[in-house]
């Protein structure tokens, strides 16, 4: 059970599949000598060479599109988009092409492409380097969307994503790269579409993604001292969504909080809330609480940034509000 960081876990998953499979290659901006802007791909160039660890020009739409073309020929490309904000530049190829080739061809094609990207606030980069846009992609049929929050999950889910025969948009959270955890000795694939109960509890279910999983765990600990037992669930895969696991938990606790760093309005949590209210309406003892960023671009000044995005305290307040309603 080695202890590795979230960053090392991503790298280990990449290295493992690169060793195992000639069809896998990685491309992205500054990923070779520099090892990526987040240092995730450090060392891969030395082991696998420039044919398979490809530094690209700053051409987000072409590198995603080239990944699509290579994937349609049976390769399993992994494209790194440096920041989620830059994912917007490649959306035409992701939304119109990658997601739809299989469908438009009536099932003739497969696009086993993985697009890794990262985002997340907490370091004051301003409005164009830390957005959380995962909700946009969940809206597009044909894509799978993954957002792991721990080293174990990021490792096993990335492995499974690369071997998935569909385009997978794989979100990593910047502030989690340094997070360490003991992971299984041997890399095991984690099936896409399976939620993980991060903490069991009886009074409230918090369904959280990304950084907010950890904020929710901190809030749960705090709530425990008030005598509130909190269950925390991380869906891990946003599409397909493990609705059954989420609904089952809420039917047990009768209360629900959804939490993510992305903007609350039209965020992923809105869909989760809709799923829960429809499938567990009679079990709910209180309205579902939503925790997310305020409806503003990310500001630069640290005090403003901290105000816009949610923290453990916001989750704790939401837990208290839902418990207060009898």
């Amino acid at each position, binding site marked *: 059970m080695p202890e590795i960081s979230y960053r090392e876990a991503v790298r280990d998953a990449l290295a493992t599949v690169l060793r195992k499979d000639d069809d896998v290659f990685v491309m992205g901006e500054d990923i070779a000598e520099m090892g990526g802007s987040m240092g995730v791909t450090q060392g891969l160039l030395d082991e696998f060479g420039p044919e398979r660890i490809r530094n690209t020009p700053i051409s987000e739409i072409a590198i995603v599109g080239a990944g699509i*073309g*290579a*994937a349609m020929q*049976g*390769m399993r*490309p992994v494209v790194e988009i440096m920041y989620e904000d830059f994912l917007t530049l490649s959306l035409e190829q992701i939304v119109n092409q990658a997601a739809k080739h299989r469908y438009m061809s009536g099932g003739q094609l497969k696009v086993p492409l993985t697009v890794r990207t990262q985002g997340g606030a907490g370091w004051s980069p301003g409005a164009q380097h830390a957005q959380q846009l995962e909700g946009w992609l969940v809206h597009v049929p044909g894509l799978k969307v993954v957002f792991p929050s721990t080293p174990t999950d990021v490792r096993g889910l990335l492995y499974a994503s690369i071997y998935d025969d569909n385009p997978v948009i794989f979100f990593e959270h910047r502030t989690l790269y340094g997070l360490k955890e003991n992971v299984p000795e041997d890399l095991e694939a984690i099936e896409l579409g399976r939620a993980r109960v991060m903490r069991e509890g009886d009074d409230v279910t918090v369904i959280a993604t990304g950084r907010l999983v950890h904020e929710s765990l901190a809030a749960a600990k705090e709530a425990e001292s008030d005598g509130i037992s909190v269950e925390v669930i991380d869906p891990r895969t946003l599409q397909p969504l493990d609705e059954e696991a989420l609904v089952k938990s809420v039917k047990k606790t009768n209360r629900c909080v959804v939490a993510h760093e992305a903007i609350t309005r039209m965020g992923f949590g809105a869909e989760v809330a809709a799923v829960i209210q429809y499938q567990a309406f009679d079990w709910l003892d209180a309205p579902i609480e939503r925790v997310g960023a305020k409806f503003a671009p990310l500001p630069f000044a640290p005090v403003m940034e901290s105000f816009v995005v949610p923290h453990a305290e916001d989750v704790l307040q939401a837990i208290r509000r839902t418990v207060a309603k009898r």
Partner: protein
Amino acid sequence: MARAERTAELSREQLVEFLREMLLIRRFEEKVEERFRAGDLPGFLHVAIGQEAVAVGVCRAMDDGDVFASTHRAHGHTLARGTPANEVMAELYGKIEGCSHGYGGSMHLYDVERGNLGANAVVGGGLPAAVGAGLAFAMRNEPRVAVAFFGDGATNIGTFHESMNLAQLWSTKSLFVCENNRWAESTPGWQHSPVWEEMSKRALAYDMHAIKVDGQDVEEVHAKTREALEHVRSGDGPVFLDVETYRLHGHYIGDPQVYRRKDEIREANEEHDPITLLRDRLSIDNGEFDSMNADVQQVVDDSVEFAKNGTDPQPEDALKNIYA
């Protein structure tokens, strides 16, 4: 001299076969216009009348194993690559027997077995995939080429520039076929590009080998495509084919072409019809032409019957083929 060499490559018999294919595309497109106006065909259709020599010249120069990405104007490319008229027409009718099984339609014709990786309704949308497929061929050292068709209008979109740059930079096995038909929908070349009369200049910026082609001359299209494919296949890098052609009809079926002078349309039809040009060159007499015409007309008429008798998908089939 050059002409003699090219002619030497193709026998009269082969050229007659090319003429037949071009005529098949023409009659197919005319039938599509007719059935659309009659209300048979749903959706949005674009015919390739005037550009048949490009489709036949390029697609017949490709080898088995080569792949291509097409555009919204894809019927000609698809037929020229060998997809039976029945399957193309059935797709336009939204039938399961169609080449995309009713999921694609006119702007999304696919035939993966014959290398057709899809027609694209986003201008420039297929170019990056042709780079990626060409990259896969290069990485695996396969003697295959990925061809991207696109129009002059696509040379102004980001995917074109990023794709050209990446292909040349990585020497992918990609062939860029620019069908310059002088119109980006209703916008003439001179209004959308400073180099509309010399699209090869776009390739210069990326240090890519470019070849200028008269797109109304199927022999020349075929010969220069062979040359370009050889260049790409041998690993000498991607090629930009600057093909000058004519769109003899409107952008879409029903386009009144209010933006285009009547005499320009008449002149294009009288002087630049690739079928007339080839027929004259081969000195095909009326008897031979009429017989060929009757033959392809029968294929087209049969395709309509085939399509009409095809199987409608069940509504709930709409929820299939979303994920592999």
